[in-house]
């Protein structure tokens, strides 16, 4: 294996490995993790690759520790990441809330498998997507991406680090076992072409007046200082004021939690990404993400061959959800079909936004949803 940081060129690459290479290309220099199928290949790849580029790999005792270590490393200034699957993701919910409250950037990768509990360790699922949004206690907002190919495992991992740093927010890469274990063409750009959005840093010197949790800019993101820079800052999971000091008052609490939620909401337009196929004249729109969107694209193509005006909306950001785009579509589209490898989670969000029912093609997980049932639903909708 190369000692190069960025493996520029064409590869026939495993999805989990593409994620690991995306992390390195993005400048990730700390990985704390715990083995769990089907994400383990990310840890294995980084165990070998991080030392090659001067980074730190540590296998922690559990996912509680992994996530805490990742947040600690990021507080020290490193781009840091962990990777897991359902059971580990549940353990990560605790410190996800800490990262939200401390506004410390981090990237958590979830290669989803059949859930709940131990479920189907080696088989695909998409049933943690609501947990990604609501899994830690309290009101908060995060950013979550759903890659559908090894290429996106690379690209969206890079984007995850950039988004996390740009908005001081945890970013969740919500992949699935199919995409994680798929081997496909991956094109890695030249080093200079890898996007890099730095963290917003304080302008005031360490002995000057710097309020680490005062968001003066329109984006509601305060600058961040790291341990050892001399700012003598306090970070706490408790409700805190602009200094970072605990402030147990209802007003401070309401203002802080509202800002943390709005930080993502106000920047949603910049954050949201979608992929669209045949939507210009579509009467019937399929909405699918991750590996399911691959089947859905096939279904839509087959429907087009039969003369049915079907299209595909593939949310790349699951959270924040592409609400505005969906509302636009709802003005002209007759029916929506939602395909996902769970018993109807994102479908709930879509029904909320369009204020009407959708046709759901749901499967609890274990095997990909094939194009046929989606095509059948398109044909049925067309026949109505």
């Amino acid at each position, binding site marked *: 294996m190369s*000692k190069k940081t960025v493996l520029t060129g064409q590869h026939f690459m495993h999805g989990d490995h593409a994620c690991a290479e995306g992390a390195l290309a993005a400048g990730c*220099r*700390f990985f*704390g993790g715990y083995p769990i199928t089907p994400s383990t290949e990310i840890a294995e790849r980084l*165990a070998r690759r991080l*030392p*090659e580029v001067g980074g*730190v*790999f*540590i296998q*922690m*005792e*559990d996912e*509680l*520790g*992994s996530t*805490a*270590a*990742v*947040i*600690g*490393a*990021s*507080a*020290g*200034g*490193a781009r*840091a990441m962990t990777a897991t699957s359902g059971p580990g993701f549940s353990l990560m919910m*605790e*410190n996800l*809330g*800490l990262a939200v409250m*401390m506004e410390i950037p981090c990237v958590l990768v979830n290669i989803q498998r059949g859930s709940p509990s131990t479920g189907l360790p080696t088989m695909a699922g998409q049933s943690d997507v609501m947990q990604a949004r609501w899994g830690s206690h309290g009101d908060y907002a995060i950013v979550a991406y759903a890659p559908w190919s090894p290429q996106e495992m690379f690209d969206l991992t890079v984007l995850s680090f950039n988004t996390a740093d740009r908005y001081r927010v945890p970013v969740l890469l919500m992949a699935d076992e199919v995409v994680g274990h798929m081997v496909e063409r991956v094109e890695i750009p030249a080093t200079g072409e890898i996007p890099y959005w730095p963290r917003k840093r304080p302008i005031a010197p*360490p002995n000057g007046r710097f309020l680490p949790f005062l968001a003066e800019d329109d984006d509601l993101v305060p600058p961040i200082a*790291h*341990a*050892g*820079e*001399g*700012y*003598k*800052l*306090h*970070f*706490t*999971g*408790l409700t805190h004021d602009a200094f970072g*000091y*605990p402030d147990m008052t209802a007003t401070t609490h309401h203002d802080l939690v509202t800002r943390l939620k709005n930080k993502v909401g106000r920047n949603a337009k910049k954050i949201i990404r979608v992929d669209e196929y045949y939507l210009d004249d579509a009467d019937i729109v399929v909405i699918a993400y991750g590996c399911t969107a691959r089947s859905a694209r096939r279904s839509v193509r087959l429907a087009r061959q039969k003369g049915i005006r079907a299209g595909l909306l593939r949310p790349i950001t699951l959270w924040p959800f592409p609400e505005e785009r969906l509302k636009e579509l709802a003005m002209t589209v007759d029916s929506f079909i939602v395909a996902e490898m769970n018993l109807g989670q994102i479908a709930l969000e879509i029904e909320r936004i369009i204020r009407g029912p959708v046709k759901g093609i749901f499967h609890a997980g274990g095997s990909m949803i094939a194009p046929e049932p989606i095509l059948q639903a398109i044909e049925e909708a067309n026949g109505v």
Partner: protein
Amino acid sequence: MSEVQISERHPLDGVIRTDRMPHIWCAGCGIGIVMRCYGQAILDSGIEIKNHVVVSGIGCSGRVAGYMNMDSYHTTHGRAIPFATGLKLANPDLMVTVFSGDGDLAAIGGNHLIHAARRNIDIKVICVNNFTYGMTGGQAGPTTPLGAMATTAPFGNPELPFNLPFLLSAAGANYVSRWTALHARQVRQEILLGFNKPGFVFIEVLSPCPVGFGKSNRIEDALAELSMYRDRCVLVDKDTRIEQVGIDLREEREIYVGNFVDRDQLPYTPPRFKEEQ
């Protein structure tokens, strides 16, 4: 009558966030004494304050992070040690100290405690052991002595407590000591020594919790608990067996204090790239 000298300065000015005073601790609590020892050791360390970082978990002792005038992280319950691990590995120039309580470190954070000791991570852990969960009002915990009364052990604690030095020794810590809040000089010296000792350093400091523990266990007040320490504390010697230094308050047994473990195992270092053969 001699003239009273009023100083405008406190010896710990600079290391304590005076704008955060008064602190939240009850009268008679020992945490403040230990925090003072930590602050003094920082001043004595010769290491720039900007390179000292304190990480704490949840509970009364966890509040120390908020009172130290330096980079400080008040994390989730039990997770101070893995947070500190990530911080130290990302920035090895930092002197990372975990300051937390027995419940936080040995119960909810117990797994992280033993694994950080096993790895011999180069962090310093100050564990204030008051035998109880103070902030939530005196529940039984992993260090509550057998038979002691607690709000969740109204008939006396049915469980055996951890013998923390024995646990940490078995787990692989480089340096393990125990003192009490009465031993302010020794605690300060021990923390200072810890800064200069590579690897995982664990310093247990027994402390009165007059409200959460003392009141329900017939210890009249904090002073009475400190007197008990004075009467019962015995300095560890070569004949002391570490498996027998657990604390049992029911009988008039000795409380062993001093240094139990002093090893020179290399601290954890992240793997570096090696050319394959």
